[in-house]
């Protein structure tokens, strides 16, 4: 106990400091997602197009939102990444394609915590990156509480 004893003034300062640090942000931010994408893309340019995101623009139930992603063209897609900007954990899914993969058409169901932008990034086998994004309105949010 003695080892932990602090003068009252210092103790108050430490307590106030931890109180300031304590609240964890409930949602990710656009900049966090931008840095995740930056990590993924590296120095290459991220271009709009070729990727087609398909999600209902008005989401009635954020607990299970159908999402379909397709990439046009004959070029092979190496991997596909989906991010939701304002979810507590923005990364949704990463799909990597093997030698037996067919045309790039992927569908799944995701959770959305609030109205936000969803971004899909395709990493092509030739090293280029393409993306698409959609702004969605969520009427019933997925439960995070």
């Amino acid at each position: 106990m003695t080892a932990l004893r602090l003068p009252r003034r210092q103790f108050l300062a430490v307590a106030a400091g931890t109180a300031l640090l304590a609240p964890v942000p409930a949602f990710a931010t656009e900049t966090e997602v931008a840095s995740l994408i930056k990590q993924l893309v590296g120095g290459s340019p991220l271009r709009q197009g070729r990727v087609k995101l398909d999600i209902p623009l008005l989401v009635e139930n954020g607990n299970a939102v159908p999402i379909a992603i397709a990439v046009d063209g004959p070029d092979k897609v190496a991997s596909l990444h989906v991010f939701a900007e304002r979810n507590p954990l923005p990364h949704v899914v990463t799909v990597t394609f093997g030698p037996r993969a067919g045309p790039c058409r992927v569908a799944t169901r995701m959770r959305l915590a609030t109205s936000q932008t969803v971004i899909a990034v395709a990493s092509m086998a030739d090293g280029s990156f393409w993306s698409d994004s959609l702004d969605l309105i969520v009427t019933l949010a997925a439960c995070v509480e």
Partner: protein
Amino acid sequence: MPRVLINVPKQAKKGEAIDIKVLISHPMESGQRHDDSGQVIPRKIINKFVCAWNGEEVMSAELFPAIAANPFLSFTAIATESGTISMTWVDDDGAVQTELVPIMVT
């Protein structure tokens, strides 16, 4: 073991692209929710999914807590030869489940 629904055509023409659909019964507990006493309910999700055709990879997916409960995945594969399509997934608790589906390629 989670129940699972897999939808793969019984046969396909050589070179044709087929659709593969999987629905796994799993709560996908996100680790973001709290119980009545305010304790965080620990995360328990399927975090990895791999599909292979006669051992050669079709796709693999890394799943995060933002995937809805009872995860559904749909993707395509090129029919090359008859054999077995395998699907394997890994739970946060380390459990691994594999399902095999035979396919005939003509």
